[in-house]
């Protein structure tokens, strides 16, 4: 090893402690709110408001019991949202929006990747431009239209408007995956007499399955995390979980414990799913501009 290189190595290992310190420091910053609120969700009200909080406390499920309806108690007390219902609403809207986007977006992505026709790039760019539209600008007229059409406060209405988030993601990311398949495979299938649709469904689609799966997961997370569409275009019956978490703040008081429990339940699905998309994350976040 030449001396310069040796010096570099020594320098580096001298820095190693600093690097680890930086990494751990930021990890603490990233994790602390999640851990603190997670802990809080298991605290009794008395422990939460106590001026001397303890790391060791008697865990209780009372917050979770309070926000999830108990079967023996009949209909929920009025004046508060049924959190479980809102969680279910989130699932319905998100899965519905995702299914619709996959059904119309994946074939469109293939066409945009593989066929040539006039106006192709304009159409592709149109989908991208949704990513940059201010939400409220679209929501106000949609709200007025939905009131007229009877789509306000319906799952269908919310699923349609969620396309603003899900469709550009699906079209652009899936298009990138289709473009990466080697053309020879498809050409061979074409020589074997497959129709275009046959090539799409039997050759291209199976090849990009992992990519589409991770696109679906990421799209699910983004749709799940949305707040403003549900807030304005939904009401008590259709509010998603993200809106419901705000329901624990009233004019007089904040139900800290219950809010913490609702928060934990709401972040569980995206956090759990994020394990599966590490490899595809950067592509999804940049709509395919970076293919990590």
């Amino acid at each position, binding site marked *: 090893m030449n001396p310069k290189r040796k010096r570099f190595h020594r320098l580096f290992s001298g820095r190693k402690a600093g690097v680890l310190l930086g*990494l751990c420091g930021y990890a603490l910053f990233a994790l602390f709110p999640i851990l603190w609120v997670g802990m809080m969700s298991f605290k009794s009200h008395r422990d939460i408001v106590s001026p001397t909080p303890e790391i060791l406390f008697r865990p209780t499920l009372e917050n979770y019991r309070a926000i999830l309806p108990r079967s023996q108690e009949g209909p929920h007390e009025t004046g508060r949202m049924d959190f479980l219902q809102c969680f279910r609403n989130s699932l319905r809207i998100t899965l519905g929006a995702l299914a619709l986007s996959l059904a119309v977006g994946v074939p469109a992505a293939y066409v*945009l990747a593989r*066929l040539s026709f006039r106006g192709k790039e304009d159409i592709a760019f149109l989908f991208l431009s949704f990513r940059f539209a201010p939400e409220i*600008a679209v929501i106000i007229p949609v709200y007025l239209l939905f009131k007229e059409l009877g789509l306000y406060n319906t799952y269908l209405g919310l699923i349609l408007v969620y396309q603003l988030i899900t469709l550009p993601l699906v079209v652009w990311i899936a298009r990138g995956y289709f473009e990466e398949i080697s053309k020879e495979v498809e050409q061979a299938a074409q020589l074997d007499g497959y129709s275009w649709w046959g090539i799409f469904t039997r050759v291209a689609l199976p090849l990009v399955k992992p990519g589409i799966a991770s696109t679906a997961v990421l799209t699910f997370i983004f749709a799940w995390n949305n707040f403003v569409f549900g807030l304005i275009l939904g009401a008590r019956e259709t509010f998603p979980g*993200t809106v419901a978490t705000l329901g624990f703040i009233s004019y007089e008081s904040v139900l800290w414990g219950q809010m913490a429990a609702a928060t934990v339940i709401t972040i569980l699905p995206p956090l759990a799913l994020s394990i599966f998309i590490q490899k595809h994350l950067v592509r999804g*976040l940049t709509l395919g501009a970076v293919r990590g």
Partner: protein
Amino acid sequence: MRPLLSLGMRTESRWLPYLIVLPALLLTAGILYPFALAGYYSLTDYNLLSPVRNFIGLRNYLDLLRSGEFWRSLGLTLLYAALVVAVEVPLGLGLALLLHLEIRSIRFFRFLFILPLMMPPVVAALMWKIILAENGILNLLLSRAGWDPVPWLANAFSLLSILLIDVWLFTPFCTVILLAGLQSLPKEPFESCQVDGASAWFTFTQLTLPMLKPFLILATLFRAIDSLKMFDLVYATTKGAHSTMLLQLNAYYESFRWYRMGRALAYMMILWLVVYLSSRLLVRSWSRSMRIAAGKPAGEA
């Protein structure tokens, strides 16, 4: 010979591509129509409380340009976006450089760092609201150190508290992009720098930064646009009080508290213009930097 696929794969009909894209386009039209409507309504005195809707030309816009509230809101929005970019891109770069090092357990750290990004912004804001509350943990720690409690989300600097939440939530976004950028760089220039005994600072400024430029611009683009449109974090924390009334919040209150739809949409058209212009600018410099990175002269289209 024309390539078989891509350029004119033989299809059953010339119309087929359009037919396949059609459902997606219909959904698109369903989004574009309201947007066009928004443009039109911004030229009217549309008010939910009034049965008539009159075309009033540019009066909403002129009113806004004359109102102090509008300029304050626009200024705050631009300030917020500038702060977001100024903090998150460099911090994201620093973290990406750390995560790029080859250490054991680095994959574990990569996973940890990204976690906040997966959360609903509203929920993240509530978590921080719990921490920053008057009797929250942060003030408790401060009081142990002999400081007075600070109303983090109810003073003149609340926008900075919201910035903190934004940094926590979205810095990983920059980190992910820049880490992918670092991993895509060729190794040879760095090795020859090392052999020549170049300082770490020299390597960083003369090699890493220029080569990362497309990724830096991309991170800036996405963060700038999303912070110009910021709504969730403010709504969940201050609701626009204490000098945090960003443009989207203003439009929200104009429409859903005061029912002045026309005026609200004028706000939104102006925000859309700001977003559009800044994204054009950034996309253009991004594609220029991509061409330079690909070794082509900058002037070439």
